[in-house]
């Protein structure tokens, strides 16, 4: 079945079983590997991406729901020349260790900051519940607060 959606600003059409998890379409059909498989059960958050600006765990999201929607993955969040504030903060605080779970955390954080631009520690605890086995949480928290500063500054400048 043909399903069409925008992904990182590009219109894509894919011919796959409509119940295929979006994660596998993004990774194996479209070839964007930044969105990770961790559990396939919507439990770890490694596959988090944005659908119409909302954080979605793509391993548990049938691709049919993506029809006509706007998807953003870590590759579309920003790049080295134009990093998203979250990515900028992640680099400033040198957050990643193994790095595998980090795209999911950054996507969840970006979704949170869009709605909660100045999150408290309690907001962070309630919103960011992904799993990081290297346990980089201490630096992540610092990076999230830093990202909020950068995000606010960007909003004021634009």
């Amino acid at each position, binding site marked *: 079945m043909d399903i069409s959606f925008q992904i990182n600003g590009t219109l894509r059409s894919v011919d*796959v*079983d409509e119940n*295929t*998890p979006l994660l*596998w379409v993004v990774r*194996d059909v479209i*070839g*964007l*590997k*930044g*969105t*990770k*498989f*961790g*559990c*396939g*059960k919507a*439990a*770890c958050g*490694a596959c988090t991406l944005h659908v119409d600006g909302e954080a979605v765990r793509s391993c548990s999201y049938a691709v049919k729901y993506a029809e006509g929607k706007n998807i953003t*993955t*870590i*590759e579309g969040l*920003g*790049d*080295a020349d134009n*990093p998203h504030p979250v*990515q900028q903060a*992640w*680099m400033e605080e*040198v*957050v*990643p*260790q*193994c*790095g*595998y*779970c*980090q*795209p999911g955390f*950054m996507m969840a954080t970006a979704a949170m900051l869009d709605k909660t631009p100045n999150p408290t*520690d309690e907001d*962070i*605890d*309630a919103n*960011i*519940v*992904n*799993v*990081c*086995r*290297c*346990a*980089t*949480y*201490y*630096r*992540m*928290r610092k990076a999230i607060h830093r990202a909020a500063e950068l995000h606010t500054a960007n909003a004021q400048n634009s």
Partner: protein
Amino acid sequence: MSKEKKDKKGFSRRKFLVRGAVGIGVVLGTGYLTRSIWRRGIAGMINTAESPYMGDTKTPPLWFEVTAENQIILHSPKVEMGQGAFTGLAQIAADELEVDVDRIKVVHAATSTGNIDGFGTGGSTSISSLWMPMRELAATMREMLKNEAAKALNTSPASLQLNNGVITGGGKAITYGEVVAGVQEWEIPKTPPLKDLKDYKFVGQPVARVDLADKVFGAPIFGMDATMPDMLYGAVVRSSLIGAKYKGADTSKAEGMPGVVKIVKEADFVGVVATSRMAAENAKKAISVDWEVDRNWESEDIEAMIQVGQGDPVEIQKKGDAKGLLEAEEGLITAEYKSPIGAHAQLEPNGAVAYVEANKATVMISTQVVEITRSEVADRLGFSKDQVNIVPTFLGGGFGRRLHTPNAIQAAVLSKAVGKPVKCFLNRKEEFQNDTFRPPTHHVLKARLSEDGLIETIEHNVSSGDVMFGSALTPGFLDPIVGADIGAWRGGMIQYGAIPNFRAVSWRVKLPFSTSWWRSLGLLANTFAIESFMDELAIKAGKDPVQFRLDQIQDDKAGQRLKAVIKAAAEKAAWKDEVVDGRAMGFAASTDANTPCAHVVEVSIEEGEIKVHKVTCAMDPGIAVNPDQVRAQCEGSIIMGMSAAMYEQMKVKKGALTPTIYGPYQMALMRNAPKEIDVVLLQNDDKPGAVGEPPMGPIGAAVANAVFRLTGQRLREMPLQLV
């Protein structure tokens, strides 16, 4: 992966071979090392031995390449699993090569071209084992470049100036890349004198991780991101039940399913190859396997096996007459502690992409044991090792889980069956049920105090499932020589050398499921038991627990380093042995692989749960090549250790290990992580030591000790749960 391939097309490079001047593995005699005194000797030796680099020392493997664009490519024999090895190695090489760190690109050495460390990557040895080899290699290469540049510039090597990849002399300049392009035969000089530590520009500095951008922008660098042209997807059927033996399978339902390319039946497993991952997973579910199971295990069965007094005891440490002195009941203080089965739960599942052709095989895989994986794949395919090329990728977490990666074999077998590249990964349930778990432990501690309130005698007995024994890393013939499992008793010795009588005994239990290396091995559980007991003894003696420890540490170099971290942690945390504003502090210390570490934690009880607010960590790893990444390892180790000590446990129900998913397998999340972690780094050694595991040691006991001060509850079982 695809990115690297593209780069290769664009570059015209010459292989630049440098002979490695490296350490040699310890050779153990096997004839007569069976008596306990020998075993204790070995235990003591292993406890303090530095792990050498165990790579190829005979042939000149590929260490460095210089591209025409003047970039230096460093082929790392250690894999990058988050510990920061690539960054540290780049710093070391940059200093001796007189280039900036960003001129060096670090890649994983493939077995076809690079050097392989037979030991693998683990045991907190990535930097410590390569500290001297990497300096010598880089310095040698620098001299080779200078010698050739001198010829090209028609001047003497001594007159040359080196500045970030450009060599000037005699009024002219030439880049490293240009030098390399003009040389056919290299002369390898004697290893030159190494630079003085104070002259290093990058070693000792908090250089940003070299893999930072890749990891922040989502580059496809992990094993699970690997692809090959025309790649198919595989899946292998696994049983949920402990000890299940494969007897055969009915695959008729799966055979016609959409996307299925081939069902592959082997003597020991059945798998499927399909056109997509979902097609392979769906077909797998339709395969009905005949498993033979001897017994349906339960948690109670396992607990009954893990008991001090059962199995084979080996005395790993002895001073004075601890055994005799502890026979009398009077004044005897005893306590028992326990730790549960722990899962690795690393985020990237195990798997591989393999392509088996007529007479060669290529496997892309995230593994900690490149050499072992090559041998296993070669054996299964009937190939020589030279016919198998293992291409290591970045690891989505290691933690010891990838010290055996037989999944490479399965991917290779599936690929051979279809003649195309096959990607085959475990799903999460399989990952939880086929883990090489941290074994459960049981500890019995006994002690008697002297009249002056110090420890007269102490004994630690630990019962544990295997860690080293039976693992892919160690040949079986070592077991009877070593006697006790060095992984199981890691951290199990008494580190307070001024105590007149002490003894440590390790009891081996073989469990029905796989137990093996888990970050820091026995350190977390053994330190939890010993350092909780030390706290109990300090309270019995009416002494401050920090001073109580300081008073019983011997005065040699190891003792001085341990005392220094204990004092540093207590001072930085403003240690107080009292409850203030509903918060209490807890203290614990350990020495692991010659790296002493002490933690002070600050804890309160919130909504009935233990809340860790702050951890002050003092650690002495010797030279910190990258202090920022040493701190990062401390932070991660502390929170991962908290997670294991406070939340995690696997159970056995109806023959299966459970749970099989994050959440029910409760782990520390953002909200459980301390908001403050204050790391004090001491550097009282003249070389880099272990970093990635030692900070895990004291965390469980430190939290339990704080909880006792706050609530009066002495929690002697991990995960720590308030009554």
